[in-house]
């Protein structure tokens, strides 16, 4: 008789393991518009199945909680049940022996607290206060509501130009987004219920690469209305494009020498090559947008003048002001801001860091851009200094991996304390203190002092990339409401008590993604049109192919390949390859066509126009 056995999973255990994995994918694909009580019930039932059965609270208490919640859902609950659910959950939380019980109950406590009103609605009115209204996950998650299943179906048929036309119905930056969009559309992709989300950005890149020049649609007859747009970034240009298509005349006032905003002055060439950005801008300008470059609107008088001369005003100045790290010697020679660094590159002034040691402070995408730029500028060594862990960084994972592959090091849990200079005031290093990750603050694990001595990391260049501010002073002086440094516009891009003045993009939300800025420009165009007394509609004229019948077998996701890191980190040439025809076809065929299958063929599957 053997004394020990190597542990292995039985067939049953393997299946259960698979259930847990699929549950995880399903949770990833979940949209947050299900009945919250139904979701809570599902959670409690799962927790129930995990109970080991030893202790009363968890074994039997969770069962009672599930029964009570189900009763409310079935329409047989009464108001006393809410208190009973709360008291039961409280008791299990307090008395359960292990986390299986007390964490489950704690969540139920939170549920009752946060959606008591929905419990009441079920009990008193016999109905849920929520509706299923996001049938197509990718379209719902895209801030500009681009018709994603539509252009994927067109890609599968090889109709690349039509795909670009369909994208442009909602977003005039198909190429820029194909290269750098953060693709929130992929987050809840229903394909995750089978294997992995569709590579939506990759397919978009494929159609944009393949389509060649696609002219903009014709503008509707002129209305004679004039709109001034302050700021020629993604938001301002989107607004201009759609207003032109509606028949209005727009003029874009841009303070810098080139259009593009953060697309040009924030994102380096290796991610978004200038000539590719120019494709989108040229198409937008072909609709007749007037452009005034090197024209900064920075006084209340100038704003007033524009307001008088034009029928409406859209403010989309972005967030181009650097934020200070507020350390001693921050103005030392060698300390630069991310904004300044990327702005210079935007004007094709590339730095030369040959032989230098570079430190970058920050954990967002801009910090990664600066890091990878510094590597390409020939630095000997580039390191990122971040207070939290890599896992806590707000930068996209692929950006972090890219930076690391190109030779940058990320120093996690390191907090800057002061900047060291030599006798000439020149930067020589950054003093830091080691941190440890600790208790949660505001729902996130926060760093705390690890109890070690301060030490200095020597460096010649220190890039501060901890966020951007907004140059909104002239606008607040003019009388527009501001919140911190943001222009206080609402989700309709309206500004309170300022008829005819609209604002959106980074300057109204704080630094955010390109696609959100584009969405704001689109919203502003619609609402400006409405404000001017029109109801112009934007449509693509592209007919989306009907669904075809085939099984969706498990199939891996095609990711975009990158140029070899040690080659690409020497220059600013594009770092990523597009898909091959074969890859794109396979990827497009993975799409589940939620515009048709499921709720999509009933309601909300497609907006033909807006």
């Amino acid at each position, binding site marked *: 008789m053997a004394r020990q056995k190597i542990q292995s999973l039985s067939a049953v255990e393997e299946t259960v393991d698979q259930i847990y994995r699929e549950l995880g994918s399903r949770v990833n694909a979940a949209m947050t518009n*299900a009945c919250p009580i139904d979701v809570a019930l599902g959670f409690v039932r799962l927790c129930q199945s995990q109970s080991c059965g030893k202790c009363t609270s968890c074994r039997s208490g969770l069962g009672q909680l599930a029964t009570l919640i189900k009763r409310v859902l079935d329409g047989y609950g009464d108001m006393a049940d809410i208190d009973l659910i709360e008291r039961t959950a409280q008791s299990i939380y307090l008395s359960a022996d292990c986390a299986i019980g007390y964490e489950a109950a704690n969540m139920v406590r939170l549920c009752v607290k946060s959606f008591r009103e929905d419990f009441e609605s079920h009990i008193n009115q016999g109905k849920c206060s929520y*509706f299923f209204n996001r049938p197509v996950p990718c379209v719902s998650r895209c801030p500009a509501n681009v018709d994603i299943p539509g252009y994927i179906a067109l890609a599968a048929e090889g109709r690349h130009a039509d795909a670009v036309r369909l994208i442009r119905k909602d977003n005039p930056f198909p190429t820029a987004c194909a290269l750098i969009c953060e693709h929130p559309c992929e987050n809840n992709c229903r394909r995750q219920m089978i294997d992995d989300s569709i590579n939506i950005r990759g397919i978009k890149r494929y159609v944009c690469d393949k389509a060649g020049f696609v002219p903009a649609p014709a503008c509707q007859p002129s209305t004679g209305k004039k709109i001034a747009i302050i700021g020629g970034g993604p938001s301002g240009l989107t607004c201009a494009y759609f207003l032109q298509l509606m028949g209005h005349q727009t003029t874009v006032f841009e303070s810098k020498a080139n259009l593009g905003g953060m697309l040009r002055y924030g994102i380096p060439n290796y991610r978004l090559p200038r000539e590719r950005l120019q494709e989108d801008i040229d198409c937008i300008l072909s609709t007749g947008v007037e452009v005034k470059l090197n024209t900064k609107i920075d006084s209340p008088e100038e704003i007033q003048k524009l307001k008088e001369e034009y029928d409406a005003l859209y403010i989309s100045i972005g967030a181009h002001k650097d934020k200070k790290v507020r350390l001693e010697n921050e103005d030392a020679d060698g300390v630069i801001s991310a904004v300044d660094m990327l702005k210079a590159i935007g004007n094709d002034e590339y730095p030369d860091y040959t032989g230098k040691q570079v430190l970058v402070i920050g954990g967002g995408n801009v910090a990664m851009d600066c890091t990878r730029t510094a590597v390409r500028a020939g630095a000997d060594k580039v390191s990122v200094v971040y207070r939290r862990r890599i896992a806590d960084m707000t930068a996209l994972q692929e950006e972090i991996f890219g930076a690391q592959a190109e030779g940058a090091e990320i120093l996690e849990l390191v907090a800057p304390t002061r900047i060291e200079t030599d006798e000439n005031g020149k930067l020589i290093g950054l003093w830091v203190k080691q941190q440890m990750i600790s208790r949660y603050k505001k729902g996130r694990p926060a760093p705390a002092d690890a109890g070690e001595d301060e030490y200095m990391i020597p460096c010649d260049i220190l890039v501060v990339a901890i966020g951007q501010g907004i140059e909104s002073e002239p606008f607040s002086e003019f009388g527009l409401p501001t919140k911190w440094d943001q222009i206080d516009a609402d989700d309709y891009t309206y500004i309170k008590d300022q008829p005819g003045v609209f604002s959106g993009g980074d300057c109204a939300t704080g630094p955010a993604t390109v696609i959100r800025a584009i969405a704001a420009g689109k919203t502003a165009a619609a609402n400006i049109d409405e404000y001017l007394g029109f109801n112009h509609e934007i449509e693509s004229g592209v007919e989306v192919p009907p669904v075809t019948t085939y099984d969706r077998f498990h199939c891996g996701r095609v990711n975009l390949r990158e140029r070899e890191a040690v080659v690409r980190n020497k220059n600013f040439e594009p770092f990523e390859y597009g898909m091959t025809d074969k890859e794109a076809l396979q990827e497009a065929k993975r799409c589940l066509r939620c515009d048709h299958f499921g709720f999509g063929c*009933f309601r909300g599957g497609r907006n033909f126009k807006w």
Partner: protein
Amino acid sequence: MVNLVINSKHISVEEGSTILEAANANGIHIPTLCYLKDINEIGACRICVVEVKGVDRLTAACNTPVEEGMIVYTHSPKVMMARKVTLEIILSEHNYTCPTCTRSGNCELQSLSEEFGLTAETYKKRMVKMEWDQNFPLIRDNEKCIKCMRCIQVCDKVQSLSVWDIAGTGTWTTINVNNGLDIKDANCAICGQCITNCPVGALQARHDKESVYAALSDPDKVKVVQVAPAVRAAWGEQLGLQPEEATMQKMGEALRQVGFDYVFDTNFSADLTIMEEGSEFLQRLANKDQNKFPMFTSCCPGWVRFLKSQYPDMVPQLSTAKSPQQMFGAVTKSYFAEKIGRDPKDIVLVSIMPCVAKKMECTYETMKDEVRGQDVDFVLTTREFVKMVKAANINVLDLEDKPLDDPLCDGTGAAVIFGTTGGVMEAALRSAYFLATGKNPEPDAFKDVRYYHDGWNEATFDIEGTTVRCAVASGLGNARKLIQAIRAGEVEYDFVEVMACPGGCVGGGGQPIHIHHNQMYSVRAPRLYQLDSDNPIRFSHENKQVQQLYSEYLGEPLSEKAHHLLHTDHNGWKM
């Protein structure tokens, strides 16, 4: 054209056709349940699933386009198994009370179950009860609802009122009044199109038969009944009668056997409506600068409710004439009561109507008064009437063709076409022409306004040098399009007729319901036109009994007495 094979039959259909359309066009039957052509093609019920060769999972035939070379099996073992299980699951959330259900016999679920040969319940019942105001003329029973979504789609797409919506999520998804409103606050026109398109008995008109039976058993009452024009084109359908067998005279005899003392005809008051509404129109036309145009007809209560809730500023443009049902009530409880020397309150007046909204109309504050009480006491749908005939075991074909009762039974050809879209307009123009010129036009001179289609009919007529621009719409979605065009200044009309139900009253929400045939108006309307052309008198102003009513009682159209009895204030009641 696309070539495919269905069940080894090689067929060729137009590109873009669905598998279901391809099968139907080639005599292959695929069962459906939620499907409603052009209105509900969403593959919700999963009964129409078929097998496509080379594809493991089944495909909904109703909304999957055919593909070149596709090989389809509509009744393979896999398909049959899946359909049967689906049907059993549908049954598990349907409270089947077939013997007492109003839809027994014309229930699509019952018919499918029979077709599938189901013999036992497989799944435990899981039904959710929902409260409903049982006094409202439209009743919804959540325990019978199978969530086919047809009601939502019909109200959205055909009637443009969106009274219904999805409620709840996930397994708890059901249908309820939009925004969680109470039905009485939901701007429902009570057209009943959701009822006639419901595959089961989840949506029904309120049953008023028992109240009528109670009234019929009261020996102190004079029991009077009126029958609306469109009823005669439909009542025989569920009694197995051919249209020409289901005569008005036989219907009258049946009503007498059920217990009515007087059987009258709403055609009478349809002619009376023309006299009042036609005169009102000419009067408005003569004072063009003081009136807003177009003038709208007011005989359809669903339409009146629609206009009041959707375009309240246009209510003054409605003719002040009461609907024929209500004119009939007022005349019965005044003129007729005097004639037979009875207190109006001793008379019970029942209407047989193709309509659900009429059940509401007769209760409005403006439709009753101190002396007469409620002008119309009860409204039964055509369906309820048929059930009464069945309950009384009347063999209709054995009944004699006896005439209806004087003095309120005469109706002209112009009156009978009130039951179809365009009929009121046509009848009004026939008499307006006479009133304006003193001579009759050709009876069929205004037939351009006939028949239902998407959008509206328009016609321009010259009446002795005056051009009259007319438009006719049926279905409230079409009515909305028409009104939007009028409001946008795209079109201009003098006189507009609207009926809430597609095709008019022949397609009314109170008419008999047939499985897989929701467009019976196209069969019933020709019957009414036949009755019109068969009638020796085709002009409302030539109705002898109407002439008698004016000479003996009312004086002339729009007289003070006529105003008091036959006209109404549409703002005198709230939705």
